[in-house]
């Protein structure tokens, strides 16, 4: 599995898609000047922009690299030469997953450091009303990282059932978009007002989707970082447990499907 992790990382760093996406990191340079345009709450704005940029880059990376890594292997017939080596299918798949996860972590460490630097500069020039709590910032970036690792898991699971990259790419994007709103929709459907408006078929569907789709709302700690608000500790713990359990289920399913897949 270690060997697969290693070549996964090599593959990403030599990939054009990765190099293209990383060009976006140049945008960090513009954050101080963009933030200073607002005249007020410059530091808060710079934190917002940095976190958004990190999230956006991680989203692109997790969707495109996660969804295309298996697909590319099958499309370019690398699977014949690799899966026929004395390595189990599950090691291969988990190697891919951990390689991608490790890569997401590395990227967010580097981008996070760049973000912190930018915020430091901004807060130095325009001192904020409330001091920046660096711990909360790190926490926000850390949970965003977990969120995108989970998304890589979704992309890999979809790759194991699909023969094209269409389903994994768009499926992952849809899962991401839906994951932000499932909580609200679920709560709405279960509220007393909705009982009269919503059809009875709708509710079980929403409930099913609510449990099936990833719920990523808990991973968003941007507000805490921006306004230096202490996050709820038990909530964080719950989110970590959710991350581990959900990812384990995703990878369990992916391993099972991939193990039975025919390499024709």
């Amino acid at each position: 599995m270690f060997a697969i992790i290693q070549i996964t990382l090599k593959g990403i760093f030599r990939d054009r898609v990765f190099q293209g996406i990383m060009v976006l990191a140049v945008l960090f340079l513009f954050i101080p000047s963009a933030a200073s345009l607002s005249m007020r709450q410059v530091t808060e704005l710079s934190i917002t922009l940095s976190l958004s940029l990190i999230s956006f880059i991680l989203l692109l990376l997790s969707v495109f690299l996660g969804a295309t890594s298996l697909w590319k292997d099958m499309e370019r017939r690398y699977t014949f030469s690799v899966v026929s080596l004395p390595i189990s299918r599950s090691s291969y798949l988990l190697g891919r997953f951990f390689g991608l996860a490790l890569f997401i972590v590395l990227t967010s460490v580097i981008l996070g450091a760049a973000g912190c630097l930018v915020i430091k500069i901004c807060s130095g020039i325009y001192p904020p009303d409330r001091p920046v709590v660096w711990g909360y910032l790190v926490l926000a970036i850390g949970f965003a990282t977990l969120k995108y690792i989970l998304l890589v898991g979704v992309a890999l699971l979809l790759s194991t059932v699909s023969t094209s990259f269409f389903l994994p790419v768009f499926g992952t994007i849809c899962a991401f978009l839906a994951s932000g709103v499932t909580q609200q929709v679920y709560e709405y459907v279960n509220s007393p007002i909705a009982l009269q408006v919503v059809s009875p078929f709708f509710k079980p569907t929403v409930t099913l989707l609510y449990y099936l789709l990833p719920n990523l709302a808990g991973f968003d700690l941007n507000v805490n970082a921006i306004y230096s608000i202490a996050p709820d500790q038990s909530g964080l713990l719950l989110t970590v447990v959710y991350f581990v359990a959900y990812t384990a289920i995703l990878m369990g399913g992916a391993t099972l499907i991939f193990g039975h897949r025919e390499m024709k």
Partner: protein
Amino acid sequence: MFALDIQGMGKSFKGKKRQVVEALQGLNLSIEQGEVFGFLGPNGAGKSTTIKCLMGLIKPTYGTATIMGEPIGSVASRMKVGFLPENPAFYDYLSAEEYLLFVGGIFKMSTALLARRTEEMLKLLELWDARKRPMRGYSKGMVQRVGLAQVLLHDPDLYILDEPMSGLDPLGRALVKNIIIDLKKRGKSVFFSTHITDDVEKVCDRVGVINKGQLLALDSVDHILQQGIEGYVVNITTVAGLREESFVTKSDLQIFIQRAISNQCLIEKIQPRRKDMEAFFLEIVAR
């Protein structure tokens, strides 16, 4: 223990319009250790299907097989073979050297051994100068040679090669043939598929002919060539110094030679005239 033991293995695919394609039908085949076996068949005969089943890439619909005593599909079975896929493709962002190191790692070779074998293989297959370049820029022949390097790297006892000579120029084909002959000398078992009869005639001990998913013939190469003898072309010089060439059937040869000797003729040359492997193959497939 057989190097390869296939028992009643079959595979059907669901083709277009829910048609079922029976790509392989109840194959029984055992390969002895130290044997070079040619799996001969036209395109679409079921050769690759058989090999993919053996390597655990696809699952046989029915039947079983073992590789060096290990059931197919297991990691242990794959540990004991060197496998070359048909028209192989390798991670093109890696260089040949990186790829071999990757493969050796998966075969759990020690660092020192792996470094030595990698160098040997890269030199043997004339990839030494290109070893640091990503395989993206390799020609088809070079990729095929990487495939062979990867097969030989961990020095297994059994080799399963799917069309190892296809798409190679005469030089490349000769190289592959020499490698197989060398493996045979070292007592290794080789199972390779091909649609070219000439390859089989030169290097194999035994040949199996497959068509439409069925094994149609299974025989030693010597026996096939022996059976194929139609007669002999005999060159003699008579007492008068005349040179004569005549065609003699198998049954007449004894009498012909006796008569020639009693007539004090000098026998210059006796050459068997036979159907070659190609004729044998065409005959079986056409049946």
